[in-house]
Structure formats: structure tokens, C-alpha cells
């Protein structure tokens, strides 16, 4: 295996940071440069990167990762309600609580591998969802979701002497409001840190161990390694990433709902990772951006907008085109996403990242041997 160089990693990291921080500019032509969506890009990027640490490296497909997202959200909102509107304790609280949850669920689920592991995590997720939805309603407020109220204790804020007004307080980072564009930059910085840590983990001996488990767990066991602790730690770290993402969702919008834990949400992160490229460093982030973009922008197109888009064409043709394309936008965005997912899985099993690599290969003018080396290197690097 060709070891990726530290230099290459730093370049990748810097490029990634620049692209993420410059989102408000390069997303403008796509109509996606509004804070809420960019926050979602960053938050689900963290979620997918964390998921990839488990799925991409060890090959263990968790089908219940949304639990940790939900748990992180609830923990963060409770921190807002009970302690302070400052986001730092909320994020720490979210990570710790979801880490504990991940440890418990992982401890049991990791006794099995393959499909049995997936089903176990799915079962736990569904159980947690139902608990949050209708059993633990004093903690989760059921279907309505946990919201801030004027009567909340906020003990640390009260101790600090922050005035209680009759309007709901907003989340802050030591005085900076965390909604809107500042909220995006906070999410973006956290995403960059999360990406850096994920990169270090992937490159570490621990990461190598996880990849070894993916390639052949039985052989690992025969050579004398106990793989369980490695898997459990990967699971816990991945759960903490999800918890961090969940707490950021609460930071940018202080509400936690049970549907965040539904199996569809767990499935979504699997789609993101596979669409972008499982096992690669930036693939999951790209997948997250794609899916969130489709969900928010494609679903908002209505016939009015389509008519404007096809305005230049003759009337008959315009109407035909509008009625055909309207199947794929608005409520039909799932259809578009499904088609795209099929195309990617059939023609680019390695996800969008494989497509990028193939294009890179196409434009390469290097001699065959060097190309092969470069491709291999970039494959291992990403």
C-alpha cells in the first residue's frame, strides 16, 4: 500500500477548508447560498464523515445511526433549557450523551457482524425512535418536538445575571448569535475540525487496523488481534460525530424532534456516504451536499418556476416539457434522487469520488505507469 504523504493531506485539508468556508460565494449561482441550507450541508457533512469512519473503514453498516443524531439534539436542547444558551456546553453535552448511547448500543450490536449487525442497529434505532415519540414524552415532548420556552430554568445564565425577557432567548457563542450566517460559519469551522480529526484517524495506526478489519476480520483474529475493542471505539467515535451533528442542528435551530431518529434518517446517511464514495475522506461530505441540495431546492420547484425556466420555448413544447419535468421536481424529488442513486451505484460503484478519479485519469497526459501510481495514491489518500 502506498502511504499517502503528510504534504498531500495538508493540501487536501486546506483545499477542503477553503471550499467549505467559501460556500456562501460559490453556492450563489445554484440558489443554495442561504444560511439554513449551508448549515445543513455542514451538519450533515459531519454526520456523513462520522458515519464513514465506521462504514467506510470497517465495512460495518450501521442502519441506525440517526439515533445518535437525535440523542445529540435532545441533549443540546436540554442544555439550553437547563444550563445556558451558550452553545459550547450544549455541544459537549451532545457529544458525551451520544457517545454513551453509542457505547451501549455498540457493545451489544458488535457481537454480530454483517447483516445481523445492521439489523441490530436498526432495531435499536426503531426502539429509540418509538421511545422518543410516545414513551419518554416528558423528556422528548413527543411528536411536537422539544422546544425552548420562556419558563426554562437556564440556571447558568441566571447565575451569570443574564436578564430574563419576555421574548425567547437565542443561542449564542459567548454573545455571538448562532443563527443565520454566523451559525453557518460556526458549523463550517466545526466541520473543518471534524474533517481534520477524521483524516488523522484514517491515517493513524488505529485507522489502518480498522481497514484491516474490513479486508479480513477472520485473518485479523488469527494473527492474534482482538478486533472488538477497535470496532467498539470506531462505533463510539462515529456515534459522537453524529451527536455533534445533532447538537449543531439544535444550535442553529433550538428544536429536537423524534423524526430525526426515524429509520429514514438513518437510511439517508447511508445514501450520502455511498453516493459520495464510501471509504474516501471527502466523498461523504459531497454526498451530504448533493442529497440536502435535492431535498431543499428540487422539492421547492413548482410549475410556476418551471414555466419561467422554459419560457423561451414555443407554448406546446413548453407545456409538454413542464409536465414531464414536474414529475421530477416538487414532490417528485425523491424520484430524481432515486434515479441518480441508481446511476451512481450501477456505473460508479465507488460513488461520485470514483467519477472524479475517472475524469482525472481521462485528462491525464502522464505515461501509463505514473498514472496507475497516481490513481492508486489518490485512492488511498482520499
Amino acid at each position: 500500500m502506498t502511504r499517502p504523504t503528510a504534504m498531500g493531506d495538508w493540501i487536501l485539508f486546506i483545499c477542503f477548508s477553503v471550499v467549505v468556508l467559501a460556500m456562501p460565494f460559490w453556492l450563489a449561482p445554484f440558489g443554495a447560498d442561504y444560511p439554513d441550507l449551508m448549515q445543513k450541508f455542514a451538519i450533515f457533512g459531519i454526520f456523513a464523515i462520522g458515519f464513514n469512519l465506521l462504514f467506510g473503514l470497517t465495512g460495518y453498516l450501521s442502519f441506525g445511526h440517526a439515533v445518535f443524531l437525535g440523542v445529540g439534539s435532545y441533549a443540546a436542547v436540554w442544555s439550553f433549557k437547563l444550563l445556558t444558551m451558550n452553545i459550547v456546553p450544549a455541544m459537549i453535552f451532545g457529544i458525551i450523551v451520544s457517545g454513551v448511547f453509542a457505547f451501549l448500543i455498540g457493545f451489544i450490536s458488535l457481537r454480530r457482524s454483517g447483516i445481523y449487525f445492521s439489523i441490530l442497529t436498526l432495531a435499536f434505532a426503531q426502539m429509540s425512535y418509538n421511545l422518543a415519540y410516545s414513551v419518554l414524552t416528558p423528556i422528548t415532548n413527543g411528536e411536537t418536538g422539544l422546544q425552548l420556552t420562556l419558563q426554562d430554568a437556564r440556571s447558568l445564565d441566571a447565575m451569570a445575571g443574564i436578564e430574563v425577557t419576555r421574548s425567547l432567548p437565542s443561542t449564542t457563542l459567548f454573545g455571538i448569535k448562532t443563527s443565520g450566517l454566523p451559525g453557518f460559519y460556526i458549523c463550517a469551522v466545526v466541520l473543518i475540525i471534524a474533517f481534520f480529526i477524521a483524516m488523522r484517524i484514517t491515517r493513524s495506526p488505529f485507522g489502518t487496523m480498522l481497514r484491516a478489519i474490513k479486508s479480513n476480520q477472520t485473518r485479523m483474529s488469527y494473527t492474534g488481534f482482538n478486533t472488538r475493542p477497535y470496532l467498539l471505539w470506531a462505533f463510539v467515535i462515529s456515534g459522537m460525530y453524529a451527536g455533534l451533528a445533532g447538537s449543531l442542528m439544535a444550535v442553529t435551530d433550538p428544536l429536537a424532534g423524534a423524526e430525526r431518529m426515524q429509520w429514514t434518517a438513518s437510511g439517508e446517511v447511508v445514501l450520502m456516504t455511498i453516493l459520495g464514495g464510501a471509504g474516501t475522506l471527502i466523498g461523504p461530505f459531497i454526498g451530504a451536499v448533493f442529497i440536502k441540495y435535492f431535498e431543499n431546492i428540487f422539492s421547492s420547484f413548482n410549475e410556476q418556476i418551471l414555466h419561467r425556466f422554459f419560457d423561451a420555448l414555443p407554448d406546446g413544447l413548453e407545456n409538454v416539457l413542464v409536465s414531464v419535468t414536474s414529475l421530477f421536481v416538487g414532490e417528485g424529488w425523491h424520484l430524481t434522487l432515486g434515479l441518480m442513486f441508481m446511476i451512481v451505484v450501477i456505473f460508479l460503484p465507488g460513488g461520485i469520488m470514483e467519477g472524479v478519479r475517472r475524469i482525472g485519469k481521462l485528462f491525464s497526459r502522464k505515461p501509463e505507469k505514473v498514472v496507475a501510481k497516481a490513481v492508486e495514491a489518490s485512492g488511498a489518500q482520499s
Partner: protein
Amino acid sequence: MSKKTGPTSDWSRRDVLKASAATAAISGAPMFFSRNAYGADFLNNPGDASTVTLGFNVPQSGAYADEGADELRAYKLAVKHLNGEGDGGMMNTMQPSELKGNGILGKKVEYVTGDTQTKSDAARASAKRMIEKDKAVMITGGSSSGVAIAVQGLCQEAGIIFMAGLTHSNDTTGKDKKANGFRHFFNAYMSGAALGPVLEKAYGNERNAYHLTADYTWGYTTHDSVKNTTEGLGWNTAQNVLTPVGAGDFSQYITPVLNSGADTLILNHYGKDMINSLTQAVQFGLRDKQVNGKDFVVIVPLYSRLMAQGAGDAVKGIYGSTNWHWSLQDEGSQAFVKSFGQEYGFPPSQAAHTCYVQTLLYADACERAGTFEPCEVVKSLEGHKFDGMGNGPTEYRAEDHQCFKDVLVVRGAENPTSQFDLLEVVEVTPRAQVEYAPDHEMFAGGDLGTCNNGA
């Protein structure tokens, strides 16, 4: 970034591509710097623009999709009327009215739509898009109280007016009321209060009621309200079973009813859930049964024509309450039914009615306030009394932003004359009978807070 890479460099192809993409992004950045450099005294101030944008956030998928579709039709019709197109509908009957048919405050009304998916998260994401990207000055919509409460909270935090569409839970203007949120629709308490006397007359004072309740805020408050009323009549409450929203198959919940000894089934369900549970209850032969020497009866506290249409013959003779019905003969209702019918070819539902009225009320409040500034709009809506909108004299109570008006008790028609004439109005319960104090125990625990204009 543009350092030339030699063949022996460790740069991968992709790194180079990415570096150049980033360079391009940075060099293109100044083109977008002029954006957002605009100060306003309140959020999404349309300023000198010739148009103003409203956000219509309704469920287009899920258990309440039918209601959502009808709400959207009503919103589009309201926009047409506000812009002076069509026959004007209720704008001609609304009293008092400052609407001129030239948009709102002279600005043409435009709209954006979004799918709430009947999920709080999706609804809030969609509302945020409307606020942040499309610069909507007002968000309206609903069909699930849980979603309406979540979006109302968001609008309060953001500083945008929220005109609730169909939301029937007591909490919307009770425990979870917000200064920026307003509800025209009636609520669960009013349903219970209106149904009481009618149920007493029809079914007497000795009944044993079994509740199936949708598992969220609306279901809970409807159950509480109806239970409060029926127990006041002397009825016994056998059991309350919570069912998930959008369950589809209710047979596992209906079978135990047969063996429970109850003689009355109260379905605290709405939308497709109610269609499914009622149809299945009838298919299971509940209504042909005799329990405790009495005919088994089913009650649906919140009725709508769309649901009656979906459930077909099953609704015959079943009592419920509704906010409005298209067969009402007053001038306002007639005008609305006429223009809705001309536009779409069938009469509007109660969901359509409340959404249409809310849009007009918002527009009128802006005209009276002379501005889109949310706090001024709040002031002009609080305590506002109006008439000619289909419910008789109505008041937006200042204490909780709930409209007070008459409530209709309806029954599924035995011999419908058309596919729309499925409900007959049994009684128009006067406002005084369904009114309650703002600090009534079912509505206690909330605080409007102060209005927020997002500045």
C-alpha cells in the same frame, strides 16, 4: 495554489483539480460581495420592491396531503383576489376591509410553496428557506398541529408573522402560543363544548366511550376536551389508545374495542387516518352491534368534507364538529364557494376556507397598519373584530391570538345529493357557548412573549 507540479510530485490529480477549483471560487468571490449588504428595520422588509412574497408551507405528502393540496388551492385563490384578478371572492363581503385589489400596500403579491411532509424538521427547513432565501414576510400553513406549533416557534424566533392554517390543538394558542402567531381555526376545546349538548340529545347520559387517539399534541388535546365534555354528560371513559400518525391499518386497534364493553367509539383522528380508522371500524361491523342494550355509535370530533369524501358511506349519521362548511348560506361563504368552484370545479374544504381567510386577514392587517412591520401587524390583528368571512361576527382575542366565533356541529348525510353534499349542519353553536377564559386549565402554561420583528 498554482504551483506547477512535476511528474515526481506527491500531488494527486484530484488535489490539483481541487486546488484550481478553490482558486476559481476565490477569484470569483468579489462578484458576490455586494449581496446582503442591505440594512433593514425589520426582517425581509420589501422596501421599495414592487412585489411582496408570502410563504405557503403545507403538507404535500403524508397523512394530511389532501388537506394540504386544498389549502394550497385556497392560498393561490387568495393571492389572485388580492392582486385584483378573478371575482374578488370574500374581499367583497369582508367587513371592515381596507383591501383594494392592488396587492398589499400597493405591492403585487407573489408566493413560494413548500412541503412540510407533516414533519416538524422538514417544515422548519422549508419555512427557513422561505424566510432566508425567498424573503417571505409571512408564513402560513398547517394541517398538523405539531408542525404548526414548530413553525410558529420558528417564526417567533426569526421575527416573521405566522398565520396558522388548519391546526386544531388547544396548545397552538394555549401552552405553545406565540406573539407572532395567529389562529383563525377553532380548537379542540371548542369542538368538545359544541358537541356536548348535541351528543346528550342524541345519545343520552349513559355511555361508555372508547377513544382512539392520534399520538401527538392535537390528539391529546382533542381527547382531553372531548373526555371533559362527555364525562360532564355522565359518560364513562373506558379506555384511550394512542395510535401512530399515518398508521394506515387500524385493525389491530379496532378489534379490542369489540371486547371492551364500550358502546361508543370516539375517533380522535384526522385526514387519511380518520378515513382509514372509520372505514375499518364500519367494516368490522361495529355500527351494527348492540352493546349494553344500546346501538354502538362512532363519533369523530373533528370532521372535514375531504375526509367524509374519502370515507364514503361510512360517515352516514356520524356526528362531529367543523370550523366551516361550504353549504352555509351567508354571503361570505357563498362568495367564496362560488369563486373557488369556478376556479377548481368543486367546493372548498374547511382547511381551504381557514387558509383563504387567514391570507386576507393578514393583508387587511397590513393595510390597516400601513406597513409590513410584524409588530405593527400584530397590534392591528389583536382584538380585531370582523364579519362576512363565513363564520359570522369573529374576534381575534388579544390575550391568546385565537379567533372566537360560532362552531358547526355536523352529521354525515344519510342521503347525500351529490359527492360533495356529505355533511349536514345539525347546529350552529353560538360563540358564547364555546368561549373560555385565556387562563383556562387546558390552555394554561403558555406565554405569548413579546412580538419579534427580526431586526
